[in-house]
């Protein structure tokens, strides 16, 4: 990873108060940004409550993430973090889809392709480098 940060001074948004607890647990709130390890994705509005769609009946979850900058170089990493966190937190019946929000990133299609590729994801989750990052 670059020693210089791409987005040195991100805007930090206040956490939304009084979120309505839905039946589906929303566990993304403490995934840390790989670049700013003291901030969570929710603080940076990479993910908001609205960007997570859950269909309990069909056992389907789709998370849409919005990188802080169009040329951010870690969306695939963020996606992987979310993916791994959800796999740990959700029952096995769920199918998880992680996507980058349309128009929010320069290499959107490439990242989406990377995140959609099951084998690459499985390989990444096995790789010691990523495992250390997730835990």
């Amino acid at each position: 990873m670059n020693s210089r940060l791409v987005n040195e001074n991100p805007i930090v948004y206040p956490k939304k108060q009084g979120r309505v607890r839905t039946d589906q647990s929303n566990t993304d709130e403490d995934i840390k940004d790989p670049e700013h390890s003291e901030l969570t994705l929710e603080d940076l509005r990479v993910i908001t409550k609205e960007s997570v769609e859950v269909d309990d009946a069909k056992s389907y979850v789709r998370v849409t993430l919005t990188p802080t900058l169009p040329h951010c170089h870690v969306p695939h990493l963020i996606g992987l973090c979310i993916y791994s966190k959800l796999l740990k937190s959700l029952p096995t019946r769920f199918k998880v889809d992680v996507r980058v929000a349309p128009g929010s990133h320069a290499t959107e299609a490439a990242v989406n392709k990377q995140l959609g590729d099951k084998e690459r994801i499985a390989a990444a989750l096995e790789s010691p480098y990523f495992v250390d990052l997730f835990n």
Partner: protein
Amino acid sequence: MAALNNLTEHLEAFVDVTRSPTHHAESLKAIATSLEKGVLSINQLVVEMDMYLTTTDDVVRARGILLLAEMLDYLKSKPLDNAVVHSLIGFFTAKLAEWRSVRGALSGCLALIKRKGVAGLVTAVDAEAVAKSMAQSIQVQSLALYDRKLCFELLECLLEQYPEAMINLGDLMVYATCEAIDGEKDPPCLMVAFHVVELLGRLFPSPSGPVASEASDLFEFISCYFPLHYTHTKGDEASIPREDLSRGLSLAISSTPFFEPYAIPLLLEKLSSSLPVAKVDSLKCLKDCAVNYGVSRMKKHYKDLWPALKDALYASTKTDLSFGLESLTSPGFEMGEIHRAAVNLLQRLVKQDISFLGLVVEDIRVNMVFDTISRYLRYEEMLDTSKLEVLVVSQILSVSARSSVESCNIIFQTFFFRLMNTLGIVEKTSTGDLVHNENSTVSTRLYHGGLHLCIELLTTSKDLIPSSEECTSTPESAQQSWCSIVSRFSASLIEAFTSAVQSSNDDCSADAYLGVKGLLAMGMFRGGSSPVSRSEFEKILTTLTSIIAANSAKTVKWELALKALVCMGSFIDRYSESEKAMSYMAIVVENLVSLVRSSHCSLPSPMILEATSEVCSTRPTYVEKMVEGFEEAFCSSFSDFCVNGNFKSIENCSQLLECVTNKLLPRLTEIDGLEKSLVHFAISMWNQIESSVVFSYDFNGREFVEAATKTMGEIVGVASVDSQNSIIQKAYNVISSSTLLAMESIPLTFAALEGLQRDLSTRDELILSLFASVIIGASPKASIPDVKSLVHLFLVSFLKGYIPAAQALGSMVNKLGTGLEEACDTIFHESSASGSSIPSDDSSKTIGGSEALLSKICLGFYGSLDLQTHAITGLAWIGKGLLMRGDKRVNEIALVLVECLKSTNSSGNALHPSAMKHAADAFLTLMSDSEVCLNRKFHAVIRPLYKQRFFSITVPILESLIVNSQTPLSRTMLHVALAHVVSNVPVTVILDNTKKLLSVILEGLSVLSVDSVHKETLFSLLLVLSGTLTDIKGQQSVSDNAHRIIECLVKLTSYPHLMVVRETAIQCLATLLELPHGRIYPFRREVLQAVTKALDDPKRRVREEAIKCRQAWTSISSRSTPF
């Protein structure tokens, strides 16, 4: 000689800088002790030390001098020869000039100067010499921190102890101080330095003195610290809090009037800063200055001071005025620190000089407020700026008025008429009529802003009354001018406030709030010279009381009025105003009590009860009145119910009793004489029940019986032994005159008991429950008449299924002193004599004749199932009573209960499942703490460690029975019983026995998880297990049994009947990770599977725990996650 040898050794040790500090301290201590004991004199010491004090080696000499100084510090309270002191101080003074040994010299001087009240003081001449030498030869700021502090302390000490000598020195001291302070940065030094400046200011008050001439320089050196700001919050500076240091600085700045030309402009400038700390500090410092500089000097700055102060008040006030219940007795808005400091300053200035008030009175902004007020009717409609205007001006005026009687008069003269005019409130002429001006068609205009201002003024002015009463020497006219103004308007004011309250509707609380607050302010004037006459005061009370009586729902208005009445009641009590108390009694208390008495009022009775109990608890006489009223109300409603069958009255009765239990009893310690009235109340309850012989109507009045027994029990519980005796006697008389005593004649035989199926009448049931509650509440010292027949009565009634009777019997055997043997005989043995005489079937013949009838019934030899279960429950309560006092007979009872649980008991046949269940639950009764009876509140006799004792008796028996049990039902029931015992014993006992208990607990968990009936028991057992998992004592056995524990917990993660069980099981799994890695790693897959399933749990809390647990268990493997 030996002492001298040692001395050299110690001297060497101290002088040697290479040794450790503890070594140094030890040798110091040793020399000091020999000096103190008189083995060594100070002269000898000096002679011995000669070499160290005069050597040319700087280090050794410095250490030597320091040693001598330290010695003198030790000898602070030992008389010394004057000549010795003189020569020593001369020596140290001379050494001050030598920078290498300055520390020793400073400490030596300080130690000698500090000497107070013992023989051997430093003379003034010597002190002068010290000061001179110090001023001339020490550069304070070039020294180390500790030495600087010594310097400042020396200065402080000199100024404090030798003021005359220092006055002689004059300029020199001031110069020395200036030079010393210049550039100082350490809080501990500054603290002393500020005090030095303060002392200097006090020492040279003359306008031609050195401080006056050097004021500008001296002020410059201290002013640079203002406002204080710590850059390093952590570290040793923290030893002196910022507040203390800032207080010291403020005292230094205000110490002398000569600082005035420099200080006030600086403070005003800092006041305008945006830093809150600076504002607070300046305001506080200005207040100190106002006190010390004197009026004439402050007067010059009034013109600048007033706007600055006003701005501070405006900036620190928030506009949200609360109209809530809690702010009825407070200003109603938040007071920040700045605000408080500003208010204090304003009050000080006005108090000190009435001419400052001129600025306030003439201020254009203050005068504008009347326009603002008349522009808006309602507070919510106001703009924020207008709200601020009104709040700040009311604050300014009320604070100014509070300062002195004189200022109050001026404020009232200037503003009150205008305010009344704006509000359209008219004045009363001497004849008592209201004066109507030409536009009298315009009625009172209730501007919220105006009302607020008016209330603030009235509230503050009331505090001035006692002071005016104390000093009667002041002329009446000056005293009373504001009073007379208020009294001229009082009638109309009360009317205006009343109309404000009455015009309010539910959705707007502001009207009601302001009205009630105004009435409260009018009603709180103290003493005979109050501007509010008695008839007006009574009018206020009438208005508030009518609000309480008229509202049928609990509105804000109602609550406000109630709180105001309570405030006024406690105010009357506090200042013991006998006249007002009479009015209060006549209007408020009598009215409310009569409302309680009359059963036909519009107000729901819980509300009227609440109001009455709140109001009346302000004064003991009211309480008496109220309990009397309650008594009457109870009697009339009760008899109304008995005669006419009015169900509403019985409901009233229960509410009344609830009120007594919940509102009055908890305040017993606060209110004198309440106990007596309550005992009277209890006795009249009995009287009432006695006199109503026939209940013409049956009622399903569980609620009433419960309320009555609860109240009765609690009253007996709190009453003194004598009162208890009288209640018991009364109750016994009622019992013996009722049909209940007929039950005594029922012989305790199987045949007779079998015929007992008919129920008691409602009245008898009520009397029985009430009597049981009396017995439950009685203390061991109270005397219970006719124990034998009472025991008999309770015995028969609990066999019929009246549990209170069983509890009363338990309480009796727990508390009885001498009568215990007799009672137990009646319960256990006498019955057996009659029991054996009846013809019985074959199976019972195998039982020995000494066996009690009760246990036979329990074991099901005779009678129906109902009788059996009743007997088991009753036996449990009796057992509890015996267990708590540590009586051996409880063992027999435990054996009977265990017998009931066996799959095949001694008679060869199994018990009915329901009876077994009751027997298992009996262990819960025995072990758990009861709310209803046999607790500390009800004076139970409690032996320490009784639970532990029972635990050690029963657990081995139950364990062995579990091993041998044949039928699954009996096995389950034995486990239930064991779970009850285990989960109620203190956790330390479990931890001591983890090894033995763990396997049986685990088995119990799996047995109990089969049936949903046992879910609560299962949960408490699981909690016991979770307690053992983490403790160090249990860890070894937990580790040995890890496989079984995990297997059991995994099963419980899917327990369908109770959410907390699943949650706790998952938490337990997470805690198991603390075990050695090798022990738990093999179960990883198993646990993860279970927890993954729990991720889909219907309850959120379980899912969350599951996520945490899963995360923890996955992380024990080195890497790959098992997806």
